[in-house]
């Protein structure tokens, strides 16, 4: 993977998280409901009680699940307060139900959710099918300013069958719908009683969920202090009495804080901070790759990248391994294929385009001769790893003729607005998940909710549709092989680096389990005896 010993300061997490698409889960919904949701440490090594601090990559605007656009950045807060319906094993992709015991379909259109009996919110009311319906309905009915999610957009009707069973009918069949649910704010269920009593605005500040912790106090952009939920559905958990979430977007600062004992856990989105932490005696028990990667996305609706030759020229001109050395000291994994080798859809022969300077220059010259010189701006977020990456791209392209590049750095909201409004030419973005669903579908399908690059490629659509329309792995593999070929031909993006979520823990804590792109589960997080 090319991750080497890393000593440099990297400012990865903010940018990586701003870009990260959400993780999905693999299809084995309906797994054993009795299975312990988290990675439980040995009971003898963890003591009950005490306080520990986790460093998220950033703060959340408020504690309203509907307002969370990404499970990546909001996962620590939401999981601690609301728990989750599903989680997924990163290596296998198998679903491990938590509050829900199964989520199944027989036709791809009607999905049945079975809930665990006896789960209560911290206000003592029951988390039942009606609570799930209430939570999902308020995501799509405009009652709160919900961030539109792919899952909600696909829902047609939501029906409560009995207190522990709910069915959801989709507008179109989707055999992989569980991914979309797990990958959005639909996994966090709110207490209907609390919402009705408090009102939406107050609920966003004083949330009530069924997670292992409840809110004790909160200072925006500083500490969010959470106290043990005595009504938590997993008996004997959580281990901690107090969990403190202290955000810091600067990965190196976060690591230094953990090393100095100012916090006990954090995560790294690429892996080199984890290496640095392990060298210093910390533990990094989990490390898993994602499919896709952090990208620089071409806008195919605007010149010059409405011409595939311009996209090919830029990609062929870049030596991404050299950029890896410059930006990450060789610590990142540059995707050679769209899917990583541990994916069932991996094919070693389907390699992404690599550096071919002569061919790139020929394409630049050809376009210039036609009166279409390649001149563009790279949009990225200030101070992020993507900004450094963009400057490296600019520097490498400065050695070619007939290509000019500018770099525009903005704050995250401005950058996001530029993506949504398709006003960019080349912009840092992300299309990654454990499974191709839903992130790659959302980013690359012509009807995808995050198709910022205005991609309209029937071959890509067919491949993604085939992967979505079946639960059979062979059928899915065939679809995704065709999809990969289409992506290689279309060149929708520069696949900059592979996202590698990995937790970093101090020596005096254990039991922190991560899923998807860095969403932690805290119930087993505790202090070592």
């Amino acid at each position, binding site marked *: 993977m090319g991750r080497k010993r890393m000593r440099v300061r990297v400012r990865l997490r903010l940018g990586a998280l701003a870009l990260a698409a959400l993780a999905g889960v693999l299809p084995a919904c309906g797994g054993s409901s009795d299975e312990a949701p988290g990675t439980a440490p040995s009971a003898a090594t963890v003591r009950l009680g005490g306080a520990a601090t986790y460093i998220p990559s950033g703060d959340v605007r408020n504690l309203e699940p509907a307002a969370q656009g990404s499970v990546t950045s909001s996962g620590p807060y939401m999981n601690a307060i609301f728990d989750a319906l599903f989680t997924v094993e990163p290596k296998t992709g198998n679903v491990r139900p938590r509050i829900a015991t199964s989520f199944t379909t027989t036709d791809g259109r009607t999905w049945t959710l079975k809930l665990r009996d006896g789960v209560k919110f911290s206000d003592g009311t029951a988390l039942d099918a009606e609570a799930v319906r209430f939570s999902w309905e308020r995501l799509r009915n405009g009652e709160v300013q919900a961030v539109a999610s792919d899952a909600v957009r696909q829902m047609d009707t939501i029906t409560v069958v009995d207190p522990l069973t709910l069915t959801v009918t989709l507008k179109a069949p989707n055999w992989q719908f569980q991914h979309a649910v797990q990958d959005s704010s639909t996994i966090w269920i709110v207490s209907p009683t609390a919402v009705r009593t408090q009102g939406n605005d107050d609920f966003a500040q004083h949330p009530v969920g069924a997670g292992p912790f409840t809110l004790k106090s909160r200072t925006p952009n500083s500490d969010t202090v959470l106290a043990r939920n005595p009504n938590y559905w997993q008996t004997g958990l959580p281990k901690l009495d107090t969990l403190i979430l202290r955000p810091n977007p600067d990965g190196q600062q976060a690591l230094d804080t953990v090393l100095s004992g100012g916090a006990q856990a954090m995560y790294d989105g690429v892996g080199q901070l984890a290496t640095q932490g392990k060298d210093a005696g910390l533990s990094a028990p989990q490390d898993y790759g994602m499919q896709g990667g952090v990208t620089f996305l071409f806008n195919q609706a605007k010149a010059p990248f409405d011409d595939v030759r311009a996209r090919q020229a830029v990609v062929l001109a870049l030596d991404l391994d050299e950029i890896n050395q410059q930006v990450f000291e060789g610590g990142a994994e540059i995707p050679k294929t769209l899917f990583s080798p541990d994916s069932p859809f991996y094919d070693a022969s389907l390699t992404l385009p690599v550096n071919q300077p002569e061919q790139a220059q020929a394409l630049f010259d050809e376009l210039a001769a036609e009166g279409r010189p390649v001149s563009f701006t790279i949009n990225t977020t200030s101070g992020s790893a993507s900004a*450094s990456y963009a400057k490296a791209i600019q520097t490498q392209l400065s050695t070619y003729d007939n290509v000019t590049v500018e770099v525009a750095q903005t704050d995250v909201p401005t950058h996001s607005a530029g993506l949504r409004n398709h006003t960019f030419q080349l912009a840092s973005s992300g299309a990654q998940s454990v499974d191709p669903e839903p992130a790659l579908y959302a980013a690359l399908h012509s009807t995808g909710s995050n198709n910022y690059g205005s991609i309209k490629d029937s071959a890509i659509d067919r491949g993604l549709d085939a992967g979505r329309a079946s639960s059979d792995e062979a059928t899915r593999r065939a679809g995704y092989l065709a999809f990969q070929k289409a992506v290689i031909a279309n060149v929708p993006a520069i696949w900059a680096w592979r996202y590698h979520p990995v937790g970093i823990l101090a020596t005096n804590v254990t039991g922190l389990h991560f899923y998807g792109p860095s969403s932690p589960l805290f119930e087993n997080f505790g202090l070592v005896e």
Partner: protein
Amino acid sequence: MSTDVLPTTRPAGASAGKPRTYTLRARRPYGLWIASAWVLLLVGCAVAADVLPLADPAKPVGRARQVPFHSLAPDQILGTDTYGRSVLSRVIFGARTDLLVTLCACAFGAVLGCLLGLLAGFVKGWADRAVSFLIDTLLALPPIILLIAIATILRPSTWTLTFGLTLLTVPAFARLERGAALSWAERPFVLAARSYGASGLRIAFRQILPNSLLTVITFVPTVIAGLIVAEGSLGFLGLGIPPPAASWGTMIADGRASLRIAPHEVLVPAAVVFLTVLALNTLGEKVRDRLEIRSRTG
């Protein structure tokens, strides 16, 4: 070296005897010379950057993060940065950028500030109140917040930066000129000009402004030094000159990530900023001293 021999007096209570002689040697202004030489060198390099044997500051010249003096080639004598670009080349082209931006901002700020200060100090009344309100408003805004706001609202560029830095200098120049105008307006020669029927404009621009300019000029080096630091701060925050153009602030910002393994990326531009600010402050102080002495004696 000239030596002035001062007349001596015996301190009270001192014993009588051979009178002691106290001498005051006029010290050579080494500080002024060094500061002037540094500023001249910097300005010379900045002006002649295009004809010096330097690499394009935007293009790579070798491997990334080469340490200084690993090669004595002009391009690499101060090493290379994260992207393999020549640090020496970027420092010199950065000097051009920084000096251009700060000189322009200082000039615009001085002109605007002096006009406002003259209006307030000479016209007084409503004009003084309006200008004072404007100045107080600008001064109430934290400078770095103001610059960040401007760089965020407007797209970062050389002109955006110049505009923001100009706004920072206007209040200082306006206050300085207002005070000077208030003082000079009461001088006898101004009163005499009034009595001869000179117009207000003539008095303002022919009598008061030329005399008060001395005060303003002595302030210029200090202002430029402050603006260089402000530009560096913005560049450090990623809101300065857009890449690939070189500026000292963006060089420091770019090198920050590699501080542990390639400290020269930060230390070289930081040292240049330090020396330049020190030199400008020294120049300002010496010029002020000399002009004040001349003003008192002359």
